[in-house]
């Protein structure tokens, strides 16, 4: 498995998660380097009523700038962009963000597939996508697409996931570049910066 990471080439990191992924995120964020040079995008399933909870929790755990993605905002290095509840989030060729209020995909809005797919085409081999814990199969189609455009596919080890179904489905359908235990995620991400 690809242990040596061709790291200079990471231009965007996208992390998708559903049920059980919050714990992993809260474990990753405090351990991230302060000088991360690429944007980090989070697509996490949650109830629209808890709009700012995720943002607030993460803000308290990292010195990186964290915010809900704004429509037409440009992805900036070292910033964390959270896909807003109840919108799909797309990435444009010019690396700005478009929000989309179309049909749910995999019963989800935001859908991880939608963001993975849009980013795959824009960043090609310079994209890293991580799929975390969850109990549906959102993200799997997206990872296939990331794979076909040469981006890196990282899956949480289902054995370390609170809800293993989502990473299991991914591992069954896509050949990942690496499968990581949750406690090794932060280290992996920090090394993308080297």
């Amino acid at each position, binding site marked *: 498995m690809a242990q040596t990471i061709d790291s200079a080439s990471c231009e965007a990191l996208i992390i998708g998660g559903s049920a059980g992924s919050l714990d992993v995120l809260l474990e990753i964020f405090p351990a991230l380097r302060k000088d991360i040079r690429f944007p980090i995008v989070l697509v996490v399933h949650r109830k629209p009523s808890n709009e700012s909870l995720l943002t607030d929790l993460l803000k308290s755990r990292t010195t990186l700038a964290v915010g809900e993605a*704004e*429509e*037409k905002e440009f992805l900036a290095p070292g910033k964390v962009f959270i896909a*807003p509840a109840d*919108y799909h989030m*797309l*990435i*444009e*060729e010019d690396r700005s963000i*478009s*929000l*989309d*209020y*179309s*049909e749910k995909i995999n019963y989800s809005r935001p859908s991880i597939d*939608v963001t993975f*797919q*849009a980013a795959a085409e824009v960043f090609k081999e310079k994209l890293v996508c991580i799929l975390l814990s969850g109990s549906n199969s959102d993200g799997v189609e997206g990872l296939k697409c990331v794979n076909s455009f040469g981006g890196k596919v990282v899956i949480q080890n289902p054995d370390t996931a609170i809800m293993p179904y989502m990473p299991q489905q991914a591992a069954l359908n896509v050949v990942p570049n690496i499968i990581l235990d949750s406690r090794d995620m932060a280290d992996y991400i920090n090394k993308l910066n080297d």
Partner: protein
Amino acid sequence: MIDNEQVEILLNDVLENHGYDFLEYSPASIKRRIIRLYGLDNFVSFAEFRYTVKTDKQYFKRFLEEITVNVTEMFRDPSFYKSLRNDVLPVLGTYPFIRIWVAGCSTGEEAYSLAIVLKELNLLHKSLIYATDINPSVLEKAKKGMFPLSYLKQYSENYLQSGGLKDFSAYYTANYSLAKFDESLSSKMIFSTHNLVSDHSFNEFQLILCRNVLIYFDKGLQHKVFNLFDSSIEKLGYLALGSKESLEFWPKAREYKRVKMEKIWRKL
């Protein structure tokens, strides 16, 4: 797969042959809609797809219906409707007559929600709601005022959260799987097609709602549409946008004042 260049070819054909201009829509979202439709309708080649879109009038109707995103809800963003109820409509209530434009109304859920609030404030009798959309088939549905019964539980929760005072079920009658909304609501609505990209201002309003439409437009087109709204809003009138949309970067935004924390601006 369809690439960016093919998207452009297709959209140029659509403009030339059908007069609809999608060239200034946000590229990633319009592309996603095109790829979705291509897959749904099992086209085998881009050439076949292009030819059909270009020449088949009946198919173009479907293209227009599917390329636009028509998802909507009643009382979506309850705090927005609460602000309309408490901050905006009572001010407009002092006018002898209230003209409202709901631009990009889709199947009408927003217009019916608004009519319900007007009714509860005892303003509906002197109001007129112009509800417009680019897509004629959603307007046909909107006129009927019938929405799937299965959504009504969510809608009535939204309604209560927005400060609604009545029993929500008083506004509709259940008819098999549909809820038919009271005709006293639709009697104050005028439905018509209107394309925000190419059609002009058609009246002056005290309130314009255009929510979750501008996210599909690029920045340049957003600004053109803001100018269109600016020429259609009376002094001291209001403009309401979707929860992720903003006037912020539009040069004339200085002439508007934000109402509290909501996406509502008042023209000064």
